[in-house]
């Protein structure tokens, strides 16, 4: 268990996904998502004394977008921290504020609206201007590099790839948060396949956490950062994620086998599969099979249910939280882990362990 005096408990959360809804501005979407989380927590904004945001000016298409969007997330006249990072990192900062005793109740919010811009074009423009911009690589190419490396080492896995893809489509179809409509084109570089890409979405995730006891506790947090240059990274082992997961378990004082539910972030099916391997959920080379066969990994359907950086780590956490909170038998999971990946080809990673109190 976490030995700090204060612990961060979750009171409520919401995920809202849509696509190209012109009747709602970005700030409308954020306001709606945060309002839904507060309602789920049975609280009003007055209860919160701080706000932590995970968002990207480039994805938002608004320079200094925090000025525009933070009040929509409830930040007016409150203590606000804004990260240009994955939403799970924002959740970890929120938890740290609670544990440090500097906040009683924090709203954590993250969003990304793929329909207003082009996240892959943003990732091309945001890469190194000397080495990578001239070659126009995007986050999707990084995913393809990673998969090509995996296929070279673990050939003859086509059946498990196809089974994992079919299974996550089935799970996403049953996910009440998921987008089910056709959204942006799913063009992908080879060796990725269209059905292995994400379903692009307009995504808002929000969570209300605080010091007073709640039904679910944030019991462990871990972070990791890999090399800056992709050419120096181990594309298969994903050590930043591996370390983040291990550190979150250490902080919670448990082993991986003590966790009964996993929500693993990844823009593509193969990113999810390799992330599952990195976390230690299966032997190397078995990631797709694990996604196809294990019901405790991404029951939400993962990125097939809707995806836009940088909201997705927080989405994964909320999916895990809501499944822990749902009525279940005595054999239901008591602990869950969510992971989130940062941009730059998952250079940064966060893992959070949740525990029912």
């Amino acid at each position, binding site marked *: 268990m976490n030995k700090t005096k204060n612990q961060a408990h979750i009171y409520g959360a919401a995920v809202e996904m849509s696509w190209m809804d012109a*009747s709602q501005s970005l700030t409308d979407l954020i306001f709606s998502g945060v309002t839904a989380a507060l309602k789920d927590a049975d609280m009003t904004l007055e209860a919160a004394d701080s706000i932590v945001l995970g968002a990207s000016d480039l994805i938002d298409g608004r320079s200094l977008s925090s000025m525009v969007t933070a009040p929509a997330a409830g930040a007016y006249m409150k203590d606000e921290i804004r990260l240009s990072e994955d939403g799970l990192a924002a959740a970890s900062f929120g938890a740290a504020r609670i544990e440090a005793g500097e906040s009683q109740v924090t709203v954590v919010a993250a969003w990304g609206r793929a329909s207003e811009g082009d996240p892959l074009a943003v990732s091309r423009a945001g890469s190194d201007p000397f080495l990578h911009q001239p070659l126009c690589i995007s986050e999707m190419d990084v995913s393809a590099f990673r998969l*090509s490396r995996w296929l070279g080492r673990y*050939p003859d896995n086509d059946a498990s790839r196809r089974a994992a893809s079919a299974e996550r489509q089935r799970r996403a179809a049953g996910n009440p948060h998921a987008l089910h409509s056709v959204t942006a084109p799913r063009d992908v570089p*080879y060796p990725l396949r269209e059905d292995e890409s994400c379903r692009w979405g307009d995504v808002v995730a929000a969570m209300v956490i605080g010091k007073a006891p709640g039904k679910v506790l944030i019991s462990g947090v871990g972070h990791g950062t890999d090399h800056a240059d992709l*050419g*120096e990274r181990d594309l298969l082992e994903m050590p930043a994620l591996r370390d983040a997961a291990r550190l979150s378990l250490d902080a919670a004082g448990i082993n991986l086998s003590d966790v009964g539910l996993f929500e693993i972030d990844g823009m593509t099916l193969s990113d999810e599969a390799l992330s599952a391997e990195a976390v230690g959920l299966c032997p190397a080379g078995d990631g797709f099979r694990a996604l196809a066969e294990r019901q405790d990994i991404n029951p939400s359907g993962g990125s097939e249910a809707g995806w836009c950086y940088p909201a997705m780590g927080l989405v994964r956490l909320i999916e895990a939280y809501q499944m822990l909170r749902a009525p279940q038998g005595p054999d239901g999971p008591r602990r869950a882990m969510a992971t989130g990946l940062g941009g730059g080809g998952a250079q940064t990673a966060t893992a959070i362990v949740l525990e029912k109190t």
Partner: protein
Amino acid sequence: MDGTEPLTIPGNWNFSYRYFAGDTATRFFSELRDNSRIMGTRNPVSGNVMVPARTFSDADYVETTEWVEVSNEGKLEAFSIVGTKFPGLPDPPFVLGYVTLDGADTAILNHVTGVDLSDIEVAAQELLKQPRVKAVFKDQREGRITDFCFEVLHDGAEK
């Protein structure tokens, strides 16, 4: 709403930047342009040679101490076959790949040529074998990463 079409307006960011490469990258790109050489720098702690050349190792957090010329040949580590048209790049499909050159300990990204892409699946089977490749330099070089590309050496695939 009263049935009025929701307002939607176009947007376009078009800012200019001036990127400073720094001394290390300037030498790296100058070597490409002037001498058709690919240079790395050595991490004094691990002994690893990093290509492209870097001022420091982020893993050991030390300055690099030595310039090292690496081979123009190496192994294709990972690839992506791009099927979308981008301004300034060849018509698709084309291959991007990370290559670890002989004498280097890190991989460098560039175009990979010399693969018949008329059948992507067949091409991929060749690339998945991590073939040997060779850097081929342009006649007119500008001191840019696009001064060279990699060409697959068909008789030297590694297991």
